[in-house]
Every structure is written in structure tokens, then in C-alpha cells.
């Protein structure tokens, strides 16, 4: 009796979550990195919350971007190293389902975690509570888009020596529009002006990427597997 695509998706997500939670130290690393990087900015720039508030959206977003990138390298690397990626590629479900499941699970464990941690960081940077919903929504959309861009980059660089540096080099230019709109939305929320325009644009970017990136990431992995 064959297995449907949705069932396969759920199974792969369970596999990824199972693997992630068995290594809790690796699970927490991006989150800790996020907290550390956001701490660097006040220490380096200014200790006053009122001044930090102006820079807070940008600081938050750059920190979120860098933390996500740190963990993206491992999206396919472990499976490629021990040979299980080939087994997944030959399971009969098509590589796209596998890629979507792995990327989604990865986002749950990194991006979603960052979104949940953002109020803590936001408070430390002087962002008012009224801006939190917009901030979290923009971070949620942004990290999801970034996971997808990262999946393409990770698919291309898996198995390369110093692939993580190249991964950043590839993904960051593509992620710059995200940064502009995400930080822009949070900035507007802080100053009280409507952030809907920036959020819509961010959502559009997210939908665009989530629709096309799976196919690009699948092609990238096929190139790597050869």
C-alpha cells in the first residue's frame, strides 16, 4: 500500500523534529547566537534605551538573519554526509516533498523559535510592547522566506569545503529586500504609523519564495547528488 504525499511530508517532518530534539545543544545554538548578537549592539553603540529604540528594528533583523544563516548550513549536510539523503531521494515520493518537509521542519525549529524569543530581545532593545505583534509577524514571514532562500543555497553548497561561508555569500544578497521591508515594518510599528504596506510586501515576497523556491532547491539538490 503506497504512501501519499501528505503522509510522507508528515513523516519527514517528524523525522527532522525527532533528530533535532535529540541534540538539544545544537537546537539552542541559533537562539543563543540571536541573543548574543543583539547584546553586542547596545554594548558597542549605546546603552540608552531611547537611542537604541531607533536602531532596534535593524539590529533585531540583522541578528535574526545571521542566526538563521548559521543553522541553514546543517539543513542537508548531515543527511548528505551519512548517505541518508540518497535514501530519501530514492523513496519514490519525489525530492520536492522531502525538501518542503525538511525546510518546514527547519523553520519550526529555528525561525519560529526566533519569533517567540523576539519579545524578550525587543524589550532589551527598547521596542514598545505595542509594536510586538507587527514585529513578530514580520519576523515570522521573514524567517520563513529566509529558510526557503537558505534551502536553495544549502542545496547548492552541501558537500563543499567552507560551504557555510559561500552559503552566506549566496543567500544574503537575495535576502536584502527582506531586511528592508521587515525592518521597515517594525520601524513603522514603533513610530505608530501603519505598517500594513510593508507587511503586505513582505507577505508577497514570502508567497513568491515559498512557491518557487521548492523547485529551485530540488534542482540544487539533484545537482549535488550527482
Amino acid at each position, binding site marked *: *500500500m*503506497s*504512501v501519499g504525499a501528505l503522509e*510522507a511530508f508528515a*513523516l*519527514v517532518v*517528524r*523525522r527532522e523534529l*525527532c*533528530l533535532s530534539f*535529540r*541534540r538539544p545543544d545544537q537546537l539552542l545554538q541559533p537562539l543563543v547566537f540571536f541573543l548574543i548578537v543583539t547584546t553586542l549592539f547596545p554594548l558597542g553603540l549605546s546603552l540608552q534605551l531611547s537611542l537604541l529604540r531607533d536602531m532596534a528594528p535593524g539590529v533585531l533583523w540583522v541578528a535574526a538573519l545571521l542566526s538563521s544563516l548559521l543553522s541553514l548550513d546543517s539543513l542537508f549536510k*548531515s*543527511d548528505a554526509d*551519512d*548517505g*541518508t539523503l*540518497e*535514501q*530519501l*531521494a*530514492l*523513496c*519514490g*515520493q*519525489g525530492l520536492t516533498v522531502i525538501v518542503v518537509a525538511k525546510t518546514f521542519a527547519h523553520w519550526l525549529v529555528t525561525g519560529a523559535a526566533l519569533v517567540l524569543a523576539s519579545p524578550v530581545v525587543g524589550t532589551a532593545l527598547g521596542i514598545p510592547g505595542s509594536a510586538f505583534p507587527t514585529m513578530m509577524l514580520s519576523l515570522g514571514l521573514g524567517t520563513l522566506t529566509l529558510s526557503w532562500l537558505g534551502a536553495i543555497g544549502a542545496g547548492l553548497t552541501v558537500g563543499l569545503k567552507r560551504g557555510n561561508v559561500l552559503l552566506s555569500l549566496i543567500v544574503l544578497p537575495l535576502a536584502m529586500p527582506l531586511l528592508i521591508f521587515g525592518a521597515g515594518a517594525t520601524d513603522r510599528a514603533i513610530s505608530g504609523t501603519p505598517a500594513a504596506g510593508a507587511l503586505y510586501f513582505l507577505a508577497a515576497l514570502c508567497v513568491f519564495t515559498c512557491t518557487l523556491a521548492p523547485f529551485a532547491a530540488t534542482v540544487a539538490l539533484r545537482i549535488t*547528488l*550527482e
Partner: protein
Amino acid sequence: MNMAVDGLGVEKVHVWRGDRHVLQGVSLTLRPRELLHVSGPNGSGKTTLLRVVCGLLRPEQGRVSWLGQSISSVRAEYQAALAYASHEPALKGDLTALENLRFAVGLKRRVSAGELRASLERTGVAACADLPARVLSAGQRRRVAMARVLAMSASLWLLDEPFTNLDAAGTNLVSGLLQSHVEQGGAALVVAHHDLKIAVAMRRLELGP
């Protein structure tokens, strides 16, 4: 014409790796109840050939067909009918043997934990079912990988050096499994650099530089 309408056909496949012409017009057929032993010295392209047959590697020239059709056009059906074991056992160290099987086989067909334990039993590693793969020895991991092949209930077995790290008992076990698989109507392509002692009609393909 080299088209095996009831099995696997490989026609004049050429593969280059950089400047090396690794596979130079290799052809083969494999029908049910047949075992093909692919041998050759190091670097002769045995693993490359196996990966081309799996569909992981697209050849520059030539084609691979399953049941008369090109494997790229019947990808899902072909993958459902095959079980591939690579040179490494391909197990996740953090998952138990049983979980490794479940996440691999469960993508191909619905399978119960009982069936998976039975497969592990047949390869002699039932005791390892709930141990994480990283604590298993190399021989035990090879047996778990073989159990995965068994559990997939595939008609075509594509095995790359399945006897690596196995002791005499393990070698006999795998030979026995291959024999019963072929006798029950399956086909197997085995890459091995040494001689095989299996009591079925065996053909040999020797790859050379």
C-alpha cells in the same frame, strides 16, 4: 536493441567525471530471477554505474529503462520497485535501528513496527532494534541496512558492496537473503570486488579501465 521489457535495461551509458571517461558505453540487462554481479578494479566505475541505474546520476549518453520505459518517465514507480544500499550503511546515528527503518521504509509503503522488527530479526540484529545506530558496530550497521532492504519489499535490489564489514556468518546470511530473493522472483544487481558464492544463476559484468 537492449530493452528488457520485463526488467532493467541499460544501454550504452557514458559518464565523465571531470576529464575521466568513467563509464564507456556500458550496457546490461537484468530480468526477474537473475543476479548480476558487477566487479572490477578500484576506480572502474562500479559505484558510478549503480548510481546511474538508481537514477541519481544522469548519464551524458545512453539510457536506463525499467519495464521498457525510460526511468525518468516512470520515476515514482521505478523507485517504488527498487531498494538501494550504498557503500555506507546510511543510518542516522541519533535514531534507533527501528526508527531508521521506519523513517526510510515508511516513505515507500505503510509498514508496522512488527514487520520492521521481523526484518531486523531476519538479519540477526533484533537485539539492536531500540539502540541508537551510533553505538552499533560496523557489522551490525551493515545488517540493519540489509534489514532496510528487506523491509522495502522491492523487486529490484541494487546493492553496493553489501558484504563489507561482515563476518563469515554475516556473509552467509546476506548470500542466503540474495538467494531467496532471486528464487522468489526478484532481481538483484550486486557490486562486489570479490567472488560471490550464491547458488543461483549468476551473470558477471566486469568493468575495466
